[in-house]
């Protein structure tokens, strides 16, 4: 800690206590101050972020007010008559892609989490859980590239024709199959949300008391009956929280979706058609913004997106506070 050049032990002790008064007394308040400052930075950053994004959207907000949300135009060419901006197309795209992605991801995640807690051989648990989580570590741009070049052609040649043949009578699956489009975006978002949702659910199922499960099994329930009658009811509210957390992720994904969703500002009933989400549209226009109203309108889209994801996060956390789980920022997995 401290090196002494000379002197008797007593002198050394004296020296060290003298140093303590000088340095160490200052050290405590300094460290306390620094850590306090760092925490303040975290809070201020969030507040500043909300303020600044709203501030940027000011011009568009004073121009359109709340009617921006319902406007279906996005025409950035100021010399045309229909020049103007609105969020409706992208809100629709965001709602549809996120809804269907979660519709697939939620049951899949429950199944994966059940496999990991109940079925997997003890030795396989860790590796499989890690692999599923690594899926979340793939950079979104890489997943987007894969979606665009590998998945999209398969969608148009195989998956969408098959869906159309079987379910074509539902308007969602009418129309001509296409490579990029809403459905391709849904698949990519599903791939991105499953690891997050299933990791939280895995943790959640781990908290179900063993006695309850054993009691059900001892009464003659099959494993599935035990899951349905004991585990799922016990974990229900936490599962809702996990799905909403996944929703927050799906809403905000920009790059991967921008690459596969087709980037059309239009509302179609068919999932095969191209569309756009709030996030993907902002990403797609990063070089094309020319007028200040257009930039401000992009910020307006960002405000809506921010509001949606903050609300999703708040709800997830409110539920989580009552449910036995932590929705941490995520270091490693459960166990």
């Amino acid at each position, binding site marked *: 800690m401290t090196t002494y050049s000379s002197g008797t032990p007593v002198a050394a002790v004296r020296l060290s206590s003298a140093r303590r008064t000088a340095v160490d007394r200052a050290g405590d308040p300094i*460290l306390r101050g620094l850590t306090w400052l760092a925490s303040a*930075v975290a809070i201020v950053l969030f507040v500043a972020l909300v303020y600044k994004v709203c501030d940027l959207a000011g011009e568009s907000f004073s121009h359109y007010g709340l009617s921006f949300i319902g406007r279906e135009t996005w025409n950035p060419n100021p010399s045309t008559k229909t020049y103007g901006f609105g969020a409706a197309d992208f809100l629709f795209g965001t709602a549809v892609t996120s809804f269907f992605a979660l519709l697939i991801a939620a049951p899949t995640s429950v199944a994966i989490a059940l496999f990991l807690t109940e079925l997997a051989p003890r030795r396989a648990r860790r590796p499989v859980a890690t692999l599923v989580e690594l899926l979340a570590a793939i950079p*979104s*741009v*890489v997943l987007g590239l894969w979606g665009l070049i590998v998945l999209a052609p398969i969608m148009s040649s195989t998956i969408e024709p098959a869906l159309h043949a079987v379910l074509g009578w539902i308007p969602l699956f009418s129309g001509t199959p296409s490579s990029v489009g809403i459905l391709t975006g849904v698949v990519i978002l599903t791939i991105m949300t499953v690891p997050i949702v299933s990791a939280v659910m895995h943790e959640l199922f781990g908290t179900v008391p063993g006695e309850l499960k054993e009691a059900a099994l001892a009464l003659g329930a099959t494993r599935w009956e035990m899951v349905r009658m004991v585990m799922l009811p016990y974990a229900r509210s936490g599962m809702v929280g996990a799905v909403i957390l996944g929703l927050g992720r799906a809403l905000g994904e920009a790059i991967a979706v921008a690459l596969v969703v087709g980037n059309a500002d239009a509302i179609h009933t068919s999932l095969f058609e191209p569309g756009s989400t709030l996030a993907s549209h902002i990403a797609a226009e990063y070089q094309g913004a020319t007028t200040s109203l257009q930039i401000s309108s992009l910020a307006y889209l*960002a405000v809506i997106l921010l509001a949606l994801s903050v609300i999703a996060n708040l709800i997830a956390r409110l539920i989580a506070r009552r449910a036995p789980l932590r*929705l941490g920022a995520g270091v490693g997995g459960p166990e």
Partner: protein
Amino acid sequence: MSPPAPTATLAGRLMGDVRLRRRRALNRTMETVATLAAVAAVVVLAVVFVSVVIKGIGAINLDFLIHSEVPFGQSGGGIANAIVGTIVLVALASAMAIPVGILVGLHASEFARPRTAAAVRFALDLLNGVPTIVTGIFVFGLLVVGHTQSGYAGAFALAIVMLPIVARAAQEVLSLVPATVREGALALGATRWRAVVRVVLPTASSGLITGALLAVARAAGETAPLLFTSSILTTTGVSTNPGQTLVSIPLRIYQLAEGTSPSEHSEAWAAALLLILAVLAINVVARALYGRTRARMAAMQ
């Protein structure tokens, strides 16, 4: 099954059998579904990884790694400038986010009252939930409007993405440091800050490194925060000057993927291979370290 009651008829017993068989069949079906779901997730990971490797490996060679991109229409060119740009951006972002993040963690574990700590944790969770494209818009408004895009702005945006990851990991791992270890240091006469620097931080070190590594891996793969902050290139050569815009590997992949020519796509795959290898490697190391910390903490308690 329980032994048949004396009154049970043959039909009744058979029905019981049928019901049991049905329950067992349902159970088997559900077990199969769950297993298939897990298999599917692993298969998707494998398919994505293998396609990136297969498509990327052919386009990676020394020229690709040591040359910068060339103007549109010319053949050849590489991603040297994007590699260097990514390293500079992520290093700068780490220099901002990691110290602050660890201090936030220390605040919660050493100084803050539970309520304050909860408020900070809440802010971090909200910050973590902000879509990264919105973070990009924020930094655009804060640092780019009225100035120009720059590596500093891009790194700042990445730092905002990293901060909640580092800080939440630090909070979590520092709270695992046994109180006895801390009290031992204080009882030996150490002041608070010495106890922190010489005992608490070293005890938690591998967990802190885990958080930092996960954040680095995340930042290295992020595109969205850079779109509005460091995407309009001023030079195409290798640059380490964050005062100018710096191109990064994810951004380059995004631009190449949006292109239409096969050569652009093969460059995109090669860049994607580099990126995915780096990111997965960092993740694997981070997870291994985290396992060690947990084991160590458990042994201390």
